[in-house]
C-alpha cells in the first residue's frame, strides 16, 4: 500500500472545501443568530459582565470613589477575612435567613396554596386576603411590624402579657430579631401562594380520582400525586428564594434602625444590625462599606463572596435539583 495518496483522490477525512455560496449562507446564518441574541448580549454585558469585571478589578484596588484607584494587591481580601469583625456575624445572619426563611416561606406558601385551593366558600375573599400583604411596600410593612411588636407600647405584647404569656423583645432582642423578620416575610407570602396555587390547580384531577379508587389517603395523595407534579415549582421557589434572601436588605435595615429608637437625622451615625448585629446582613455591610465609608475595595470583596456563595448554592440546587426531581442522566 502506498503511503502517498493519489492526487486525484482526496483523503477520506479531509473536509471538503465549501462552496463560497454555502460559506456565505453559514455566515449570514451566524450573523442572524447574533442579531437575535444581541439585545440579551448587550444587556448581559452592560448589566452583568461589566459590573462583575469591575467588582473583581476594584477588589484589588484602593479606591475612595474620588481619587484615582491604586493597586493594593490582596489587602482588601485580607482586611475582609481577618480584620473585619462584622463579616462573620453578617455572613452567619445571611446564611441563617437563607436556610430558615426560604424553607419556612416555601412550606408556608405551599400550605396556604393548598388551603385556598381546597376551601369551598369565600374563595375570592381568602385568596385576596392572603395576597394583599404582598402588595404592601416593604418599608411600610416593616414599620408597621416594628410598631406592632414594640416591647413597650406594641399591642401584641400587651395582649400576650394580658393572657399571662411572657412577651418577647421581638426586634429589640438579639435572639428574636431574625425570627421576627421571618414572621414579616411569612406575612407577605402572597407571591408564593399564587405560584403554588397555579401549580396545584394544574395537577390533573383524574390522577386524584385514580388514587382515591386505589384507596390512597390524603397524605398518600399529596405524596404520590401532588408532590411529583409541583416539584419543578418548588425548585423554582427555592432557587429564587435563595437568590432573593442573599440580597436581603430593606426590611432588616429598617427594622434595626426603627427598633434601636435612635432618631435618624442628617448627622446621625447608625451602624446597621441592631440589636447586637443580629439583623446585619452582607448586603447591608456592602452598602455601609461602599457608600458610607467609601471603602470600595472591601465592599467589592464582600460582593464577590456573596456572588460565589449564591452561584454555588444555585448550581448545587440545579444540579441535584434539591432532591426534588430525579436527576437527569
Amino acid at each position, binding site marked *: 500500500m502506498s503511503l502517498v495518496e493519489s492526487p486525484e483522490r482526496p483523503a477520506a477525512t479531509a473536509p471538503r472545501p465549501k462552496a463560497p455560496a454555502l460559506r456565505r449562507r453559514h455566515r449570514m446564518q451566524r450573523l442572524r443568530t447574533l442579531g437575535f441574541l444581541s439585545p440579551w448580549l448587550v444587556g448581559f454585558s452592560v448589566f452583568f459582565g461589566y459590573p462583575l469585571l469591575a467588582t473583581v*478589578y476594584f477588589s484589588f484596588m484602593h479606591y475612595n470613589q474620588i481619587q484615582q484607584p491604586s493597586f493594593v494587591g490582596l489587602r482588601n481580601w485580607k482586611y475582609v477575612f481577618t480584620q473585619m469583625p462584622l463579616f462573620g456575624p453578617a455572613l452567619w445572619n445571611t446564611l441563617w435567613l437563607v436556610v430558615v426563611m426560604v424553607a419556612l416561606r416555601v412550606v408556608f406558601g405551599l400550605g396556604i396554596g393548598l388551603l385556598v385551593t381546597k376551601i369551598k366558600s369565600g374563595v375570592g375573599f381568602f385568596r385576596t386576603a392572603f395576597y394583599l400583604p404582598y402588595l404592601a411596600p416593604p418599608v411600610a410593612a416593616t414599620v408597621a411590624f416594628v410598631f406592632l411588636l414594640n416591647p413597650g407600647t406594641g399591642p401584641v405584647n400587651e395582649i400576650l402579657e394580658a393572657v399571662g404569656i411572657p412577651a418577647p423583645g421581638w426586634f429589640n432582642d438579639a435572639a428574636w430579631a431574625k425570627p421576627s423578620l421571618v414572621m414579616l416575610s411569612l406575612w407577605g407570602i402572597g407571591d408564593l401562594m399564587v405560584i403554588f396555587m397555579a401549580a396545584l390547580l394544574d395537577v390533573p384531577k383524574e390522577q386524584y380520582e385514580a388514587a382515591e379508587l386505589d384507596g390512597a389517603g390524603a397524605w398518600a395523595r399529596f405524596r404520590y400525586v401532588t408532590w411529583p407534579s409541583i416539584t419543578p415549582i418548588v425548585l423554582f421557589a427555592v432557587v429564587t428564594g435563595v437568590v432573593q434572601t442573599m440580597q436581603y436588605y430593606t426590611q432588616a435595615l429598617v427594622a434595626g434602625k426603627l427598633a434601636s429608637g435612635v432618631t435618624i437625622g442628617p*448627622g446621625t451615625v447608625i451602624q446597621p444590625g441592631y440589636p447586637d448585629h443580629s439583623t446585619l446582613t452582607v448586603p447591608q455591610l456592602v452598602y455601609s462599606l461602599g457608600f*458610607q465609608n467609601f471603602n470600595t475595595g472591601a465592599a467589592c470583596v464582600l460582593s464577590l463572596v456573596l456572588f460565589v456563595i449564591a452561584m454555588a448554592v444555585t448550581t448545587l440546587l440545579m444540579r441535584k435539583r434539591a432532591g426534588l426531581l430525579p436527576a437527569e442522566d
Partner: protein
Amino acid sequence: MPRPRMRICLSAALAGAGLILSGCANPSVGSDRDDPTQPVTLKFWHGWSNQAEVKAVDDSIARFEKLHPNIKVKTVNNVTDETVNQALRAGGDDAPDVVSSFTTNNVGQYCSSGMWVDLDPFMKKTGMEKTKVFPKTFLDYTSYQGSQCALPLLADSYGLYYNKDAFKEAGIERPPRTMSEFKRDAAKLTKRKPDGSYERAGFVPNFRLYQNSPDRLFAQWGPTYFDKKGKAQLARDPRSKQFLTFQRELLDAQGGYAALEKFRTKFGDEMSSQSSFMTQKAAMHLDGEWRGLMLKEGKAKFDWGSAPMPVPDDQADTYGRGYLTGTVAGIAHSSKHQNAAWELLKFLTADTDQVVRFANAIHNVPSTFAALRSPELDADPSFRTFIDIARNPHSQAMPPSINGGQYITALQDFSYNAEAGKVPDLDKGLRELDAQIDADNLQSVN
C-alpha cells in the same frame, strides 16, 4: 475561533475594560478662578428640615443676597451626608457649590479626599485670620492634617437636663458635679414599682438611648483617641477603662443593665412628647442645647433646669466641660464658582450679626468668638449653660479621622458589649479595639 485570534480579542477586551474602569475615577473638577462680582447662581445643600429651621436658613440667604445682589442662592434642605458624599463623587451640573454636614465625623474624609476644598487660600485672599475668628476646638474639628476644608456653622454642646421637681422630692439640692455624686443622685432618684419595674430612673445611661452614644459620655473624661502617629490609643489611656467601669457602676446603682435596657425599649420617640425626660420616666437626661426649646414648646409639666454633665472625681477642676460637635460647611471640589461660594460661606460662618441671628433662630450655639460674646445672644439661662460649655477650654470634640466616623462606630460596638457585661477583660478588649481601629484606618490610606 482560532486560538491566536481569541487571545487577541480577550486582551483587547481586558485592556478596554481596564481603560473604562480607570475612567470611573475622578469626576468633574471645579474652579477657583471665577469673579465673585459677576452674576452667578449658587447651590447650597444643608440638612435642616424642620419648618422653623428651614425658614431661618432662607432668611439668612435673603440677607446674603441683599448684601451680594449679583449672587443668587438655591437651597436644598434635608440633605444627609450620604447624599452629599454620593453627589460630590458623581459630579455634574446639579452638584452643590456650598455644602454642609450635621456631623463633624466626616471632616477627615472630606479633607483627605479633596472632596471639600482647602479654605486657607480663600481666607488668605480675603484677609481672614481664622484663629482670631473661631475658637481652637471648632477649628480642630473642621480641619484634618493641615487642610482646613470646613468651617463651623454653629455648634452643639451637650449637657445635663434635670427635673427640679424630682430633685426636690428626693431631697437633692443641686445637679451633680462629680461622677460619685452623679451615681448617688441617680440611685436616689430611681423609683421602682412593687413588681420591680421602673416608675422612674435617675439617669438611663444605656448607650443606645437617644443621644447617649459612648463618645458623648466619654468626653467628660477628656480622652485622647489617637497618639501623635495617628495610632489608636484607647487601651493605653487609663480613662477608657475608668469610663467603661463607671458605666457599669452607674447601671448597677439603678438596677442593672438588663432591667434598664428593658425600660429603655418602652420609651417613646426621642423628638416626641413621649420621650423619657418629657414623660418623667428619667429624672436626668443628656442632650444638646436644642432640648430646652423643645421642653418649652412641648410645655413640660414639671420644673426643669440645665447644667454641665458631671466630671470624674479626680478631674473636678474641669467641671463645666462637655461634648462639642456642630454643623460644618465647606465648598465642593466640583464647584465652578468657588470664589462666589466662599463669599456665601464666609457670610454664613463668620459674619457676627448673621451668626447670632441664626443661632437665636434655631437655638444653636454660635461658633465665633465675637458671636459667643454678643449681647444680642439669647439670654435664657438654660441656653446660656450650653454657651458656657462651648466656651469651656476642657470641652471636647471628636478628632477627625481619614475614614469619617468609622472609629466611633467601632467604639460604639465595643461599648455596647462592655456595658452589657460581655467583655470580661476590658484591657484585652480595648487592645483589640485599638487594633481594629488601626486596621480600619489603614484600609482608607492610599
